[in-house]
């Protein structure tokens, strides 16, 4: 069974791979084309003949035999004349050449319309999508800017607070130093003033003592002079 299967496979392979001479030859191609044209013409003729026979049958039904014969005669004459004067069967290439521009134009028009419709619809869709995307981007950008500006403001405020505190601290230090200097000066002045007052008091005391002594001296002198004047007065009175 397996052997037969193998044989079959081999046979298929052999048949498939069997060398085929290059073909078809040009003669064969030409003769095939000629034959195709002949067959095509024959089939055209057959169709035409069928139509004529049908039309004759229709006329026979309605008109009498003699008239029909005349008609057939006339048809025969017409047919013969027609056959003689009829144009040759259409050449496929001529038909193609004649029809191609019109078909191409129509196709182009249809394709253009179709593309325009497609482009219009896609344009509207793309515009909407872009608008939405744009708004979304704007919102996101605004949010990011707000966040960034908030962060920067906070940092600047922190810097400002820090510098103010530093300035206040330095100011306080300077004030304390000034107060200490004032206190030192005060203490120094106080000492100096105390000394001066002490000296002043001592000098005043001495001066007062001297003044007292002078006053006592003056008083003695005065009392001495008074007693001398009284004695003089009395002497004068007594002289008078």
């Amino acid at each position, binding site marked *: 069974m397996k052997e*037969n299967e193998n*044989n079959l496979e081999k046979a298929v392979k*052999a048949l498939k791979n069997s060398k085929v001479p290059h073909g078809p030859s040009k003669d064969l191609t030409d003769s095939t084309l000629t034959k195709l044209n002949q067959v095509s013409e024959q*089939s055209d003729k057959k169709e035409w003949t069928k139509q004529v026979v049908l039309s004759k049958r229709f006329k026979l039904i309605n008109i009498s035999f003699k008239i029909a014969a005349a008609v057939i005669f006339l048809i025969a004459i017409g047919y013969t004349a027609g056959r003689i004067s009829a144009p040759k069967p259409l050449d*496929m290439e001529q038909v193609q050449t004649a029809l191609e521009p019109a078909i191409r134009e129509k196709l182009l028009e249809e394709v253009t319309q179709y593309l325009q419709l497609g482009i219009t619809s896609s344009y509207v869709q793309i515009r909407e999508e872009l608008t939405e995307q744009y708004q979304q981007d704007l919102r996101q950008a605004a949010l990011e800017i707000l966040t960034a500006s908030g962060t920067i403001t906070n940092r600047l405020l922190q810097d400002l607070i820090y510098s103010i505190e530093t300035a206040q601290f330095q100011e306080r230090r300077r004030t304390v130093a000034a107060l200490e200097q004032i206190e030192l000066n005060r203490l120094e002045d106080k000492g100096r003033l105390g000394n001066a007052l002490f000296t002043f008091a001592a000098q005043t005391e001495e001066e007062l003592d001297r003044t007292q002594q002078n006053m006592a001296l003056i008083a003695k002198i005065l009392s001495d002079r008074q007693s001398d004047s009284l004695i003089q007065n009395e002497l004068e009175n007594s002289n008078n």
Partner: protein
Amino acid sequence: MQVIDWQIIIKEHGSTVWNTAYRLLGNSADAADCFQETFICALKVCESQKVRNFSALLTRLATTRAIDQLRRRFRREQKSLILDEGYVSSGLDPAKCAQQQELAARLQKALAQLPLQEAQVFCLRYLNDMSYRRIAKELNIKTNAVGVLLHRAREKLRNSFSSLSNQQKSEVVL
């Protein structure tokens, strides 16, 4: 009606039709007849229906015509005469070449004995590498039916190969 430039069609698909015909028939005269018949048949098909895939149609028609011719040939029992005329040397060593020719000839004989549709399906599948779906479309049958026909064809071919080998063995014994 479809406007077809047969010159272009022959130029494009002529070689495929030729190869299909020659492979099955094995000689130029029969292949040429088959070639012409195929295109005339294709013209008739085009008059009655619109053809989209010329390659597939022409392959199917060529296969059918070639199988018909094979069947006629084998009925007349002229196979050996005609085959001896047509085979081309494939460049292999003579023994192998002869073996392959014999196998191919056997297959041709077996194909000629098959029912037409089975032979068609077998050739389209194994000689022309068509897919099941394509074959089904071309032969106007269901895809499952293609599988069934192919199975039957293989079975029959296998049997015919076994009977041939038995015959040969008995000849050798005698």
